[in-house]
Structure formats: C-alpha cells, structure tokens
C-alpha cells in the first residue's frame, strides 16, 4: 500500500462512525479480543515475568542488531538459502519481482505479511505480471474487496459475513449456493485456496522473528497458510524487516510466550514454525530455493533516538484491540497500513510527520495501549513526543498553536489568570448554543465567581472575625 491518507483522519473517522456495517463488525471484534487476552493472561502464573523476559530478549537484540543480522545472514547461506537487503520498499519490491522472474514463476501464493503491505508488494507484483493470491483468509477477503487491511492481525475485521458472502459469490464461479453460515464461507475459501497452494510456483511469507544463531525464520499462524506457502511451492521468499532478529531460539521463545497471548488470547497460536533454508537433500518436500529479503525503510534511523522503543513492537495488535479510538473507527480511518496506537506512532515515522498530522493527536492519552503492550512500549509518550516534533516544525494548526501558547502564558501569570477565568465564565454564559460543537449541550459555570475568589473572600471574613 503506497497511498497514505492519514491526513484525512478526521473525515475518514467520521465516515467510519456512520458506517453501520463497520460498527457492527467492530462491536463483534473488540470484546472478543479483549476478553480472550484477559483470560489467557489470568491463566499464567506471572505474566509480568514473561513480559520482562520478552523485553530483555528484544533489548539484547537491538543493542547488537548489526552483528546479529550478519550472523543471521551467514547462517541462512550456510543452510543453503540467500539473504537480500533492501533499504527502501521500492528495493524490496524490485528484489521480490526479480526473484520471481528468475524462478519463471506465474502464480504466487502469499501468506500475510505487514512488510508486504508496507511495501505495497501486491501491486508491484501484479504490475510485473504475476498472479498473486493471498492465502490468509482475512487477507484473501480484502484482496477480493480491493481494500487494505484494517487490523494488523485480523485484516478483514471490518467485514460482516454477508459482505464476505457477496464477495465470494462475485469472484468464485461456483453457481447457486447458500453461504449463509460462516463455516460455508471458510470451507469455500479452503477449497479455492487449496488449489492455489498446489499450483503456485512461489510462496511469499512474512516472518514474526528471525533467529541469528541458526538462520531460522519463525512464522506464527492459526490457519496453517504460512506453512503451506512455505512448503509447497518451489521457491519460498520471506519478506521481513531488520528489527525482527533475535539472538537465540531461547530469546525467540521468550517473545513467543507473550505474542499469542497478547494477540488472540491463545497460549500459542495453532502453528508456530521455524523454517531453515531450502529442502534438504533427502527431504521429499519443501522448496528448492529459500530467500530472505531484509527491509530497513527508516528503521535503522530510529535506533538511539526517542522512538527506538517502537522497534520493540512484535505486531500483536493488543494496542489496537484495547484502543477506544480504534475500536470506534476501525483501521481504515488511519489511512495507512498500521492503524491504532502503534500505527499512530509508526505512520508519522515511516511516512513523514507532515503526511500524518492528525494521528499523533488522535489519542486521549488514556494509556490503555501502554498498559496492554507486552513489549513495554510507552505509546502515549511516543505520541506526545511526536506532537512536540509537530510543534517544533510548526505543523500543528495555527489556531491551536496560538490558543495553547496563550493559555500557557496566562498560566504563568497568577495575577492575570483570574481575568482569563472570568472571561471564560462570561463566554460560556454568552456563547450562543449554535456555536457549541455539534451534538453537545452548553456547559455553564457554577456560582457567581471562581473558587479562588470565593475562598479569599471567606478567608478575609474569617480573619476579620478573629478566627
């Protein structure tokens, strides 16, 4: 996905609030994710300890990123695979297109990859003439609908079953059939995609983790589509990013301990697989070529800066699921690949502060995201830091800039401040109702004067009466 419409967050969110199908879909989703996560965590003896270990594994990796990536590369080559490096998303797309051309591929099956979304890989592949089929059910649905994902782990969370049935009837020439039940839809997708798995030349997947000590890549899914994409086609291409590397299998498992629990409320997803190179000489299955494409796209620049903690993100989606903003507007309102709190931080960092002005501001700082983040990312603080940068670069709307500056200035003048309060009290009284924000009734100031004024009058009285 290349077009970023994050600057349209306000109109996009207003449209989302009026979209009854979306609201219905979101209401299903949020409660489910939240409840399941809470249950999974309650079943663990000490989730804080698991978080601590996961964060330590990540911190170690980030403090040693260059060396671990070189070690990873060395081990991948040793196991018969190849590593490719991409500074930008264009380089990543060009690399994948070249690999597919060299493999004489026609049909490409793809597992869900947020890096693929970030790069707009699907459109690059289609432009190069390949037939690309998404295999994660959610991704497949939105591919048919020609929409971007609206959630990082549940891409089609905004679709109702009726909408999915309509899409399947439009794109699958399978004649008259019911498709009322969700099981009908899942079964139909299974059989349509099974054929695609068996006939694809190349499988593209993302990776949840890269392991430096042995050159393995970990893929976590519940459907098993990642494993089929990585096993059946002749060529397996992994598109991933540099911050996903960890030192050891032990470190990787420390992160896995918090991933599924935070994401879907499972102790483990149904399938977690560590892939290592192409098929071995005596193996009867597996791809003959194994490629890993490592994307930077601005990540290395975050190291050592205030936003380095964002590199801890393991894309579990817990911050989205618990965000009161996300849960009311869904992912599309955010205008780019990553929605919710993590997206409100990542989008300005990867797309530019001026391309996503509203996102850092679209938070009440309620702090729930930070509370549920298994990797300890201080998301509200990151958002506040982005606001500070917007202020520095004069990107905030002029009226806000002036209004808040004036209020801050007045707040440093205790003698003048009461006049400002008096003005506020009068303004509330005088302001015509129509000037109030839509949907709100006017708020009135209580009593005849401020607390401070009443208090000082009383204190005077008290001291006069000899108290």
């Amino acid at each position: 996905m290349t077009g970023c419409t994050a600057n349209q967050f306000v109109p996009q969110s207003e449209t989302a609030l009026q979209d009854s199908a979306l609201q219905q879909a979101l209401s299903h989703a949020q409660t489910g994710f939240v409840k399941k996560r809470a249950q999974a965590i309650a079943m663990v003896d000490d989730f804080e300890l698991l978080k601590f270990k996961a964060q330590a594994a990540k911190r170690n990796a980030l403090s040693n990123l260059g060396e671990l990536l070189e070690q990873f590369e060395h081990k991948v080559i040793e196991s018969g695979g190849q590593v490719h490096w991409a500074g930008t998303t264009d380089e990543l797309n060009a690399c994948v297109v070249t690999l597919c051309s060299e493999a004489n591929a026609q049909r490409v099956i793809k597992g869900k990859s947020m890096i693929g979304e970030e790069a707009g890989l699907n459109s690059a592949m289609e432009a190069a003439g390949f037939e690309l089929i998404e295999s994660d059910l959610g991704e497949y649905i939105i591919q048919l609908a020609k929409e971007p994902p609206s959630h990082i782990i549940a891409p089609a969370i905004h679709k109702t079953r009726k909408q999915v049935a309509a899409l399947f009837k439009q794109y699958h020439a399978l004649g008259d059939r019911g498709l009322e039940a969700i099981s009908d839809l899942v079964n139909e997708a299974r059989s349509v995609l099974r054929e695609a798995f068996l006939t694809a030349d190349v499988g593209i997947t993302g990776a949840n983790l890269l392991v430096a000590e042995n050159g393995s890549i970990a893929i976590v899914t519940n459907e098993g589509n990642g494993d089929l994409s990585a096993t059946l086609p002749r060529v397996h291409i992994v598109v991933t990013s540099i911050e996903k590397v960890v030192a050891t299998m032990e470190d990787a498992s420390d992160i896995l301990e918090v991933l599924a629990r935070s994401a879907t409320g499972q102790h483990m997803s149904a399938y977690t697989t560590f892939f290592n190179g192409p098929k071995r000489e005596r193996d009867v299955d597996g791809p003959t070529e194994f490629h890993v494409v490592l994307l930077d796209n601005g990540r290395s620049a975050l190291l050592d800066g205030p936003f380095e903690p964002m590199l801890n993100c393991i894309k579990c989606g817990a911050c989205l699921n618990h965000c009161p903003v996300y849960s009311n507007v869904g992912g599309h309102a955010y205008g780019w690949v990553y929605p919710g709190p993590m997206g409100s931080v990542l989008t300005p960092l990867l797309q530019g502060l001026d391309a996503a002005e509203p996102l850092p501001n679209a938070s009440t700082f309620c702090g729930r995201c930070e509370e549920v983040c298994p990797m300890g990312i201080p998301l509200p603080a990151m958002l506040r830091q982005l606001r500070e940068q917007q202020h520095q670069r004069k990107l905030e709307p002029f009226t806000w800039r002036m209004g808040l500056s004036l209020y801050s200035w007045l707040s440093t003048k205790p003698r003048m401040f009461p006049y400002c309060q008096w003005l506020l009290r009068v303004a509330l009284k005088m302001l015509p109702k129509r000037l109030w924000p839509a949907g709100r009734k006017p708020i009135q100031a209580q009593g005849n004067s401020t607390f401070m004024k009443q208090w000082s009058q009383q204190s005077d009285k008290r001291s006069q009466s000899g108290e």
Partner: protein
Amino acid sequence: MPDHPATTTKQTNQRTRVALYVTCLVDSLRPEIGFACVKLIEGLGFEVDVPKGQTCCGQPGYNAGHWPQARQVAKVQLRALEGFEYIVVPSGSCAGMIVNHYPKLFADDPVWLPRAEAVAARTRELCQFLVEHKWSPAVSRLSARNVSPRKTWAYHTSCSCRRETRSEEMGAQLLTDAGCIVGHMKNQEVCCGFGGTFAAKFNALSTRMGQNKLEAASQCGADAVTAADLGCLLQLESLDSGAFEFRHIAEVLADQVGSQHPANEDERCS
C-alpha cells in the same frame, strides 16, 4: 458558603499543612467541588491552605508538545506548592501531571528536578489522600445527615486515576464506605473520550466515546454519574440529555457527611 468545622479533635493532624491544588477546571467552572474538598480534608483534622500562586498544571500545553512553555507553567505551580506536607488534587489527571510528568519535564534540569520531585512525592489525588488518612463518614465530626434521596451512582474510573495515580479502586471503596449505592458499570477501563483538546479536535469521535460511556451508565441502573476528574464529568454532562446528575466524587462524599449549606454554627468554634 461552606462551613469550616471545629478543630477540637484530631489534634494530631493540627500542624500538618495541606495545600489544596484546586485545578483550573474546578476553580473556573465548579467552585463547589473545591469547597467539598476543603470540607473533606478539614474533616480529617488538617488545616487546609489554598496557595495563591496556583493557576493550571500546564497539561494542555505539555500534551500538545509545547514543552518549554509547560516548564514555565510548572515552575509557577511548584513555587506555589512547595513547603506543604501534602498537596491534594481533586483530579487524577492534574495530580498525574505533577507526580509523573513534572519530573520528566525537568529531567535535565539540576535545579528544578529536585524541586519537582519533592513536590511530586507530596502530591496526592484526592481519593488517594482520603484513603491514606482513613477517611470515612464517621471520622468526620459532622453528624451524617443523609438528606438526599438514595441515588444509584455510576462511578466512572477516569483513565488518569486508573493509569496515572492508580487510585481508581480507592474512589470506588470510598463511595461504598460512605454508604453510596454504586452500580456496576461495564467497560470501566475504557476512556470517556474527553482527552482535553482531543474532544475539540475530534468532536464526532469524542462524542461517540462519551455516548458509549453514558450508555454503560444507564445500563447499570444509575441515575447519577460521579468521577474523580471534572474533565470526564463535563464531557459526559455535555452529551447527556438530562438523564443523569453529574457530581464530582468530592461532592458526593462530602454530602454523605452532612449537608454543605447552611453551615452548622453550633459545631463551629474558634
């Protein structure tokens, strides 16, 4: 106005000076919350001082990224609040600003950091303070005069009380201890949609979030809503069509120990 109860008992707290940091919202718009706080704190036997230099904690500017300005505002508040045993704030949000964010603002300032930390260490959100000092209606020397008809309260645990001062359960406990009927509101951990400038910048979204909260309040059978943050209460009040009464937790608790008006002269002494 409010009564200033006797100081004949609770000698132990006599010399402890407590500053009430009333907050700009309470000061400007809901002065009675300030008097309710005074009543509650004095009820514990403390002497209440309302330092003159206080204005606003600086959160609007701080949260908007105007950090140098926020530092100036913070210095003014710190000057006013230094030298007290406790600083009591009837708002999780403003208390959180002083406790958690002032030290961050002055992290690189060797002069102001210790001053900020000293004030932060003495600052309490109102409910925190009351629980710390074992407040209960019986502790107050005022006889309980429960004149108002029994209401069912929806207690909205503000996000600041929940995640900045971690005192959300204290508020619930105080209400129960004071004999209030508190309805069980679902999704308590979800934000009401105020968020300061957020409410103005994203009105439609903020409105929906507030309506969700009001719906939860109505589902729990409440006819009144209380919280320890006036910002949340004003947000909800502006969206309510008259179904609820909105009162700050200080007022609700103060009501439980006796009526605020008129002052009971018999119990006063000098």
